[in-house]
Structure formats: C-alpha cells, structure tokens
C-alpha cells in the first residue's frame, strides 16, 4: 500500500541553524501539506501546496519557513533560522484532490532545537 514517508525521523539542531525536513508524498497525489505538533499541544496546520505554489498557509508559517517541491517526488519544509519554539513533531501529508478527499499522513519528523 502506498504511503507517505518522511526523513529524518529525528533531527537535532542548534538554535539559529537551518533545517530541511523531507517528505515523499504518495506518487499520484497532487496536494501536499505540512502540520506540526508541539509536545502536549494540538496538531496545527502550517501550509498547503498545489501546482508548485502555496495554496494556503497559517499565521505560524512566517518568513522563516519555506516549502519546495524540488523534483517529482520530494516535498520539503525549510526552517531558515530555528528557534527553541520550533521544537515539535512535523507531519507531512498528501491528497489526490481537494474537497472531501482524504489526507494521508507520514510518520513525522521530531525536530529538537537546542
């Protein structure tokens, strides 16, 4: 069964460093998403991406964040200068279509900023 994969499973970085979180969505999906979950808090929407551009983003997704689909398979989230409060589990998701279509989630990347 096709699935969303994410690498690495755990990333540790120093405050101020850039990190890139990688995701491989399901191959025939067209819509891609990033969510995050700070420990003990709700899963929060960050951004959605379609047709090589951002279609929606939350207030969390400020200038420190960017997303890219560098090739036909990967979808990345970059945090330019990490802060302590960026420590969280980051989930990638993809869906075939919009509307009521199911979003399939990856296992997450745990980001720890020291």
């Amino acid at each position, binding site marked *: 069964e096709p*699935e969303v994969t994410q690498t690495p499973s755990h990333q540790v970085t120093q405050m101020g460093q850039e990190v890139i979180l990688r995701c491989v969505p399901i191959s025939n999906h067209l819509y891609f998403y990033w969510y995050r979950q700070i420990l003990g808090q709700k*899963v929060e*929407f960050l951004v959605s991406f379609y047709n090589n551009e951002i279609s*929606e983003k*939350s207030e969390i997704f400020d200038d420190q964040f960017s997303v890219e689909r560098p090739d036909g398979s990967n979808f990345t989230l970059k945090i330019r200068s990490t802060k302590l409060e960026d420590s969280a589990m980051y989930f990638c998701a993809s869906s075939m279509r919009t509307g*009521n279509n*199911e*979003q399939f*989630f990856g296992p997450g990347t745990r980001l720890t900023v020291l």
Partner: protein
Amino acid sequence: AQSVTQLDSQVPVFEEAPVELRCNYSSSVSVYLFWYVQYPNQGLQLLLKYLSGSTLVKGINGFEAEFNKSQTSFHLRKPSVHISDTAEYFCAVRTKAAGNKLTFGGGTRVLVKP
C-alpha cells in the same frame, strides 16, 4: 474560524469493554468531520469521515461515529476494544467553504488494559 474540542485527554478502558471518545466542534459554516488514529511511532491514519448523508458513519477496525448537528458533536465509539486499540485518537474538521486545512482537537489517549 473553526475549532475542535476533545473533552477527554486520556481514557483508560478494559479489554472487551465499550469506549466512547467525545468530540465537539465549532464552525460558522458546514464542515467535513474526521477521526484519525495514531499508533506509537506511526503517522496519523484515517479511521472514518463524515461528508454528508447518514449521520452514523462506520470506519475501520470496528469504530463508528455519529454526527449530531444540533449538538455540534462527532463522538467516536467502539462496542468492544482490543489491546491493539491502544493509541491516540484525533478528531478533526475541515470547512466545506474553501481550503484544505484540517483543524484538530487535542487528542485522546486510549489505554486498553487486559
């Protein structure tokens, strides 16, 4: 803006006993409703969804949920749980109006005891 409240953060339950996980939502527009499950070290997996039609929705692994528009609730039930149902369960909504983002509740951790 929409919001989701899961009233119980943890629910301990004995094996073969029934379980109900409560979810209430708030939205000014019509919504789609979802329940996701997260097993340890895995991503979010869709259990079931309500899009329209019958208010009783059946999902995978013997779970079902009932949409109650007047009470703005979407409670999840299983008549007899197994040890393997130990996981965290998330209720989520998405508006029908526009956009794809899911808004999640805080999650309910279910611990099934033998």
